[in-house]
């Protein structure tokens, strides 16, 4: 299912997911506190908190009480997630598997027929 516009907390959460998946944020990296992030972006702290809760529940980050929020470690690669998402869209749009593979080969180059 596609999602074009997202709510504020989803955008925030997705931003962190992407950074963690692509390795921009590494295991053990400290995230800004809820307050710091709210202040930086001008977003309600409750909304930031909700994004953090969502990230924690899906295992991207963990909270050390009174110390801060840390990255859990690399999850599924961002590229894999992106590829899945895009391919699902393409499939929905009606492209057949054969055609898709053809395009894939063109994009990656080489001669694997």
């Amino acid at each position, binding site marked *: 299912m596609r999602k074009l516009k997202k*709510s*504020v907390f989803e955008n925030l959460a997705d931003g962190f997911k992407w950074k963690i998946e692509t390795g921009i944020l590494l295991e053990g990296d400290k995230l800004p506190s809820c307050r710091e992030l709210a202040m930086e972006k*001008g*977003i309600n*702290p409750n909304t930031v908190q909700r994004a953090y809760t969502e990230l924690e529940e899906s295992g991207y980050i963990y909270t050390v009480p009174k110390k801060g929020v840390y990255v859990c470690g690399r999850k599924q690669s961002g590229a894999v997630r992106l590829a899945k998402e895009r391919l699902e869209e393409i499939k929905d749009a009606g492209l057949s598997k054969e055609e898709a593979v053809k395009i894939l080969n063109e994009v990656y180059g080489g001669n694997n027929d």
Partner: protein
Amino acid sequence: MIEIKNLCKSFGDKKVFDGANITVGDASICGLIGINGAGKSTLLRIIGGVIKPDGGKVTVDGEEVFENERIKSRLFFLADDPYYDTGVTGLKLKELYKTFYPFDDSVFDSYINTFSLDLKKPIRNFSKGMKRQLFVAVALACGPEYLFLDESFDGLDPLARLEFKRGLIALQEKGSTIIIASHSLRELEDICDSFVLIDDSKVKVSGKIEEALDNIFKLQMAFEQDIKPEDLPVRFIRAEKVGRIITAVAKGDKQQVMQKLESLNPVILEEIPMDFEDMFIEEVRKEGYLK
């Protein structure tokens, strides 16, 4: 806590409020939305003690606001087009507010520096945006427990808006409650945790923004057979059909609705995401404002 029970207010023959109920909890930032003329400014004036309600109860921390000096010293109402005497400079304006509110000079000065405003110049020479910056600085420096803002984002540049939002968050952290009436729903979505939508002299929807967004959703679907939206097993608040594609808005349990529709083997069934603005349009559209 702000509690409004069964608020009624008429101006001549025009009923602005007819039994509105609103509760805004402590330390929250609440967005007040509604179409032009819905009564946002009137509501802020009523909670700010400027207008006396005709009926119902308007209380802040359990006390009625109108003509109540004690409660009013804890709240601050910033009008849409704030007043200043002709010839008054920023410094004189500061003096005025200082005589009524606990004024934090350091907060004020820091905003004045950020916005680089000249306090020695008469305010009438300021641009519209600069006036707003000045008044926002005044409001934040007064650090009220209750802050009521009428369209205070308007005319501010993106940087000033960010500063403003930061200021509001800082105020909220100190336990203040803020109500902002605005049409900049994107800004509200960022800064607010709750909202109140006024429509038709009443409160149409209110609550947490995220929950309200979870509760309303828009779907696009098409089926093998040509089905009219009315014949679907789901009650939509609005549906339209173009060719075989049905676009519909529903409220309630998304999972349940999706399950029901999936069982009909749709060719397409997808959710079209809605943000705060979309929600606003859908909520108000039902009432026939937009056709």
